[in-house]
């Protein structure tokens, strides 16, 4: 029916005829919508700012492993190197071959836990070299028997901290091999904890996984089921997207869903979740003012219907159906809140822009948010317009014509 446009027109005319009152009605909606918009945009800005600060913190890790319920395959040395060179924007990857055994130096013997890996493991949190160097690619390639040990281990095994160049005997798997210390790293809380057990103390050391395997007779090509990737936090999403395809390709596991990738429930995700909760709570409070605005619309529309009872009677006597009257008044309420919504958005954007600039948050506007808010404010008009519009539509024409 082309008459719908006519109802809109007459709704507009009636809004124009009551400019002052229409504006006051809209004011509630304007305040509600701009409050919601402001809260959501500032929330987004806060999140973006916190995230970019966390991205600048630096290295993060991603764990990749093969699901042993889906495949029997393991990573070979060659495949590990191939994967490392195929994924761009990472510092490197490192498998972990852990060996538990004993270490013997000049000052005594201790239980030892050796982590065999690749040089990228230097990016693990807490690794800071204080003397010498970390093991490098050539140490891995040539399977050199070299070790990086903690300050605690150096003190216990050698009696002093700067033991670079000294050798120790490592015993594990019933085999004893000589290893040369090439680097001393700062203690981590873990070192302190393990070394505090007196005679039962355990020390921690790291070395090339190739030499660990060769020394203690592990079959390096048939035991590695996972590795850790080291990368800059900023590149995490891009790397995550790329990793599965690369690993599946190289391992010949396409379509088998056998590669498990875990970026861990990192600090940033927890923080984002908390920020989201805060934003939604404040947005709900702001939405209450929107509700109050909606009730204002209902109020004014009810008054308007009462004032225009005679007009409604005239329209009915001229052949207006119940639905025509209903549409006219619903359109009036919806237009009021739609226009109020638009003004509220402009106002809210301005306020949030100023606040973001002052506080130093980044200011971004999601167009979908704007569209949703416009839709919601119009829906509020329709919802709160139903009661007064129904009252108008159900008026008895004889009674309505009789009112002055």
């Amino acid at each position, binding site marked *: 029916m082309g008459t719908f446009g006519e109802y809109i027109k007459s709704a507009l005319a*009636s809004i124009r005829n009551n400019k002052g009152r229409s504006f006051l009605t809209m004011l509630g909606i304007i305040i509600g919508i701009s409050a919601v918009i402001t809260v959501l945009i500032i929330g987004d800005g806060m999140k973006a700012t916190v995230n970019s600060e966390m991205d600048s913190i630096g290295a993060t890790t991603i764990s990749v492993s093969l699901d042993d319920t889906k495949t029997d395959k393991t990573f070979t040395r060659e495949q590990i190197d191939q994967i490392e060179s195929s994924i761009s924007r990472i510092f490197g990857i490192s498998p972990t071959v852990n060996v538990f055994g004993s270490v013997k130096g000049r000052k005594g013997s201790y239980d030892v836990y050796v982590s065999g890996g690749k040089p990228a493991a230097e990016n693990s949190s807490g690794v800071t070299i204080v003397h010498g160097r970390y093991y490098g690619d050539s140490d891995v390639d040539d399977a050199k028997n070299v070790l990086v040990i903690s300050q605690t281990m150096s003190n216990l095994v050698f009696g002093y901290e700067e033991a670079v160049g000294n050798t120790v005997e490592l015993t594990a798997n019933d085999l004893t091999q000589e290893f040369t210390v090439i680097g001393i790293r700062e203690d981590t809380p873990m070192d302190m904890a393990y070394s505090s057990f007196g005679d039962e103390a355990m020390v921690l050391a790291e070395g090339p996984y190739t030499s660990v395997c060769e020394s203690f007779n592990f079959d390096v090509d048939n035991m590695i089921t996972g590795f850790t990737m080291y990368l800059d936090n900023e590149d995490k999403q891009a790397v995550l997207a790329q990793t599965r395809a690369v690993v599946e390709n190289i391992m010949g596991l396409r379509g088998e869903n056998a590669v498990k990738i875990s970026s861990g429930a990192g600090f940033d995700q927890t923080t984002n979740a908390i920020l989201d909760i805060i934003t939604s709570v404040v947005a709900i409070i702001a939405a209450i003012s929107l509700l109050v605005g909606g009730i204002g619309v209902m109020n004014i529309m009810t008054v308007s219907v009462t004032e225009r009872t005679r007009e409604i009677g*005239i*329209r009915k006597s*001229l052949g207006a159906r119940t639905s*025509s009257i209903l549409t006219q008044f619903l359109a009036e309420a919806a237009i009021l809140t739609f226009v109020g919504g638009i003004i509220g958005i402009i106002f809210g954007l301005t306020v949030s822009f100023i606040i973001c600039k002052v506080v130093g948050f980044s200011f971004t506007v999601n167009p979908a948010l704007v569209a949703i808010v416009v839709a919601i404010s119009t829906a509020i008009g329709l919802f709160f317009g139903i009661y007064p519009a129904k009252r108008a539509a159900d008026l008895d024409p004889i009674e309505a*014509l009789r009112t002055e």
Partner: protein
Amino acid sequence: MKKLVEIKDVSKIYNPGENEVRALSHVNLTIGEGEFVAIIGQSGSGKSTLMNMLGCLDTPTSGKYFLHGQDVSHMSDDEQSDIRNREIGFIFQGFNLIPSLTALENVELPLIYRGVSKKERLRLANAALNSVGLEKRKTHKPSEMSGGQQQRVAIARAIAQAPPILLADEPTGNLDTHSTKEIIRIIKRLYHEGRTVIIITHDPGIAKQAKRIITISDGMIQSDIKNPEYKDEI
């Protein structure tokens, strides 16, 4: 003469029960196409109830109302709206124009509810306003016009979509002598153009302008006569 309005044994009772008010009591009435009828009665006589019934604003408690042969006595609100829109042009004592709309927009209203296209609507509304001599007042709002002019707008609105019946309720009740003459002249002309005109009034001076006079009191028709004084000139 074809029957246009046929009321059979119609009663209307308000507040059924002990304090019931019998506004109409077993009324029978037939009006043919192209008649010019005045229904005269004092206030409380039941003439307003009869007018609401004739105008399909109300339904009878008992009895039947046939309009154009169609039983309209037990219709839904929307069906009644459609019948009013198609069959009846109302002219009210208080003009009943919508104050926020211009003369032209007021005349367009029933055409909008009928779903007439914008172009056709403007043509019909302009023609109707021209026929009541308001060519120059089309963009005026009711508050900017005299009572006589407002009633002419109301007449234009009533005839714009050419309904078979013109139902005028005290059409001159709010007008001065000069405007009264003017309005009566227009109504007579519309009758001459072939429309069925029913005037409801308490004023014998107005009633005697019609060709047939029906007197109503206590909800019953007391007399139904051909007006001996009727003058055919406009």
